[in-house]
């Protein structure tokens, strides 16, 4: 368990140059989450049309792991259906619990780099924050579609 397993170069790249950082105009699903134990805050926005996540953006304050994870998540979910996105949330969450998962299933190769977080139990919540926001946002939009 070395620090280099946690702070992989690709993670630091997303931390320093976050993708999809920003705010969308109206018409997007917005989920604000925070991690009350550490003070990290994130706001994830998704534009969902015809069951497809067309675009995702985030704003937030947090550590390298939480912001890099948010950057990767927003990049990965673009163009996915709500179900596909929820499947990714599950895959990611299992990877964080240290389960062997097929990382090829991630539409973005970079996400594999977060695998090392599983060895740092105190940091798992940092990595999963943005994904929890995705789960909540996608789940809520799914409910809206289901109800007549």
């Amino acid at each position, binding site marked *: *368990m*070395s*620090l280099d397993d*946690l*702070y992989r*170069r690709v993670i*630091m790249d997303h*931390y*320093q140059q976050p993708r999809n950082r920003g705010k969308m105009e109206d018409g997007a699903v917005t989920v604000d989450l925070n991690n009350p*134990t*550490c*003070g*990290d*805050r994130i706001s994830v926005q998704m534009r969902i049309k015809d069951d497809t996540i067309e675009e995702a953006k985030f704003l937030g*304050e*947090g*550590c*390298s*792991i939480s912001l890099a994870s948010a950057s990767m998540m927003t990049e990965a979910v673009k163009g996915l259906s709500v179900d596909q996105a929820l499947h990714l949330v599950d895959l990611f969450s299992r990877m964080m619990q240290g389960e062997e998962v097929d990382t090829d299933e991630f539409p973005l190769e970079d996400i594999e780099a977060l695998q090392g977080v599983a060895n*740092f139990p*105190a*940091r798992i919540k*940092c990595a999963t924050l943005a994904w929890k926001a995705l789960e909540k946002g996608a789940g809520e939009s799914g409910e809206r579609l289901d109800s007549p």
Partner: protein
Amino acid sequence: MNRYAKDFPILGQQVNGNPLVYLDSSATSQKPFQVIEAVETYYKQYNSNVHRGVHTLGSRATDAYEGAREKVRRLINAESTQEIVYTRGTTTALNIVASSYACPRLGEGDEILISPSEHHSNLIPWQQVAKKTGAALKYFTLEPDGTLDLEKAKQAINERTRLVAIAQVSNVLGTIFPVKELAKAVHDRGGVIVVDGAQSVPHMKVDVRELDCDFLAFSGHKMAGPTGIGVLYGKKELLEAMEPVEFGGEMIDHVDLYESTWKELPWKFEGGTPLIAGAVGLGAAVDYLEQVGMDTVAEHDRKLAAYAVKRMEEVEGLNIYGPREDRMGIVTFNIEGVHPHDVATVLDAEGIAVRAGHHCCQPLMRWMEVAATARASFYLYNDEADIDRLVQGLQKTKEYFGNVLR
């Protein structure tokens, strides 16, 4: 290792391949074997319920439970053990004062005055009192270095101020607040003062009669004792006038079908079977600290704080919050460009335990204009070598992030 560290069995271990340097005593302190053994002996030799039963073990348990109360009384120089109520910790103690003292007595037009630096446990209960009673919650203004200007603070206390609640030592800034002077000012206006002693009682001599505080709350686990036990001190006449918060066994005098009466102080506040092992452990912790001497503990704390501030200021790009001088052994800081979680993770890899986050002080973080900070806090088992290790770790953190961020 200093001479006290040898008493703390947990400290002799390796963490991530390095000797542990424990710098998170403000969150919870480590326990000397004297305390661990006292708890073990209780469970092995005289575990029994207190204040009931005629049998020998029950008497031994009661003696130990009440004996620890006398030790606590002596530690804070209360007049009587009737003024020492065992609680689950500081949070519970402060909530008892809020719900049983403040709620029935405060109303519209009254003011509660607290500091923006308070721990959530000495802030949210007063928000709740304000909501329930219509009293206004007001805040002292902190100086830029995280101290109070006594003259300004006195002016903030007026005839509407019914209650001032303040920590004697800030768990983030290390500031020592002038509780004695504030107590006088609030008494002159007819109010009471509630002192959060969670970070002071473990680290310095606290004399409730000298401070003339009305209530004092503190936790056992931050003073070398077990978790789950704490103390509410209250002046006898105030506690006597208060209603119990929890009702049930242990706290009653006479029970009828429709009416009941309460035991006398302090037991009317101790409903249910109490944390007997916790009280026994707390008693052993008080013995331990008194053997070292609270003045020695305080002096050690201040010396380490001064040394830490001096050494940490040598680290370029490191910001220290709170006063530079006259502070207790709590040093909160940030390294420019590195999030405190990342700082704490790199230090942990070096075997150094620090806290990162908002330290249960979200309003204070906003006042400091930071989202989170890292914090190193010291106790009697730490020494200058621990701080040297911390400084090395901080240099390493900077180097590491300098490299991975390049």
